[in-house]
């Protein structure tokens, strides 16, 4: 049914779906969305420019701060790119530890997303449950790395810390608990009417569109396309650890939920396998601080999908060019396609459906409170400002 007149509804930058600023301009006909224009960049921090100013060691931590949730995926990708340039391989034990941390991160990210998704459809009990159980993963990660969010586990040439035999029983115990809970959640999701009504056949992305619009990660896999960097382009120890690529044919938000739940279970099994089969030996290879000229492309399956880093070095201690493409940006065209023909009320859950992380793709916008002027600053000029106030040198 058409009302004949098209109304433009701005959605964001501050919007109910997520705690991150992003702007979408919806053109709606009655209750039906007919067109959508994304406008990203509210979180743009000029990180790619900042990469060129820092040494390779400092950039590990900068890469980690591209995103708060998939911090490990970004550092893995970064360190792999540099290792590729240096022509060295991380030792086997380090690669297993990378897998363990990456999969723990995936569990934590997916359960965080599931919580948000059910929160968007107003099912807050489920949200509380999920986030309570997510604490178990966070605690393991803190135990392994010393921090809940920014693990700083990876370094160029390996990992910084070992997973000692004392903490392995604790990890196994938490994994058992998580497995039990996740199975319960899958059962609950399938049987809960509230969830089914709000998510089945909502935000449909057909397999053909998904491939054409270059969607990645669980969004793509929920459209029935079997595509996973871990399996297709194995890095770390993924070529030695058996796992299934979880897909679903529903093409809607519900199947995206199921795919992520399935991936949590798959991750739990992978961590168990990795802990059992972890080889002994070196943790890291010491690397020179200067990198010889060259270029490398590194890919990692972040919790949200394919993450790609490109690095070009010029022989000095700082990279010449660093490019980051986070999975959320790749999913935006697909997201826009999903909106077409949907109801306005479903916008939050569809938007949340791709598990967007806008911090990953953007830049910092600053409002100077004193003059009330809006200023766009990248990270460097931000630090320059702080420096001016403080009058001290930033190395």
């Amino acid at each position: 049914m058409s009302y004949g007149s098209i109304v433009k509804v701005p959605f964001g930058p501050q919007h109910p779906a997520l705690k991150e600023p992003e702007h979408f301009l919806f053109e709606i006909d009655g209750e039906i969305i007919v067109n959508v224009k994304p406008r990203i960049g509210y979180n743009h921090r000029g990180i790619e420019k900042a990469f060129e100013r820092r040494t390779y060691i400092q950039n590990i931590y900068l890469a980690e701060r591209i995103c708060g949730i998939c911090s490990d995926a970004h550092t893995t990708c970064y360190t792999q790119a540099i290792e590729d340039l240096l022509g060295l391989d991380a030792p086997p034990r380090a690669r297993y530890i990378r897998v363990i941390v990456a999969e723990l991160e995936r569990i934590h990210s997916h359960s965080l997303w599931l919580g948000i998704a059910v929160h968007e459809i107003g099912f807050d009990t489920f949200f509380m449950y999920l986030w309570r159980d997510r604490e178990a993963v966070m605690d393991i990660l803190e135990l392994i790395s010393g921090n809940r969010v920014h693990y700083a586990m990876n370094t160029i040439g390996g990992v910084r810390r070992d997973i000692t035999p004392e903490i392995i029983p604790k990890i196994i115990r938490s994994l058992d608990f998580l497995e039990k809970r996740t199975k319960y959640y899958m059962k609950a999701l399938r049987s809960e009417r509230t969830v089914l009504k709000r998510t089945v056949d909502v935000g449909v992305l057909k397999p053909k569109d998904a491939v054409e619009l270059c969607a990645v990660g669980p969004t793509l896999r929920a459209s029935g396309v079997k595509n996973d960097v871990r399996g297709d382009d194995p890095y770390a120890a993924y070529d030695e650890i058996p796992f299934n690529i979880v897909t679903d044919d529903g093409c809607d938000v519900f199947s995206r939920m199921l795919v992520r739940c399935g991936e949590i279970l798959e991750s739990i099994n992978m961590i168990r396998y990795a802990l059992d089969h972890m080889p002994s030996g070196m943790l890291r290879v010491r690397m020179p601080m200067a990198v010889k000229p060259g270029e490398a492309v590194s890919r990692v399956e972040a919790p949200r999908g394919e993450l790609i880093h490109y690095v070009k070095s010029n022989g000095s201690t700082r990279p010449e060019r660093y490019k980051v493409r986070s999975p959320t940006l790749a999913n935006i065209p697909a997201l826009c396609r999903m909106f077409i023909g949907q109801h306005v009320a479903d916008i939050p859950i569809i938007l949340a459906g791709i598990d967007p992380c806008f911090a990953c793709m953007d830049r910092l916008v600053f409002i100077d409170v004193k003059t009330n002027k809006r200023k766009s600053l990248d990270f460097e000029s931000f630090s320059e400002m702080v420096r001016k106030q403080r009058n001290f040198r930033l190395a």
Partner: protein
Amino acid sequence: MAIIAEAIKWLLKHPVTIKYPFEREAPPKGFRGRPVWDMHRCIGCGLCSRICPSGAIEIIGRGQEAKIKHYVDRCLFCGQCSESCPRNAIKLMNDFEHARYNRDVMIYEYKRET
């Protein structure tokens, strides 16, 4: 019906949350907290200041006379300084409550006592 059983089950259990300022959990072993300098071991090489990813460490002077300023508000708690220090002069402490109203009190200075 299931929800009632579930609700009763959880009513009998302790709350999951901790009443934070009154109850505290100790951070696990190996926690990356605030770095602290042992100036008796520091040789003033300046590596921590140069390698810090966020520029939170400032070194004034060289060698034995060096003074370290650590800006906690800029610190990432990555532990790279402690890892790079050749003489183990930097240790990561367990404290994590660094929030203050004023930035000026978030600067820690370390000087060698003579």
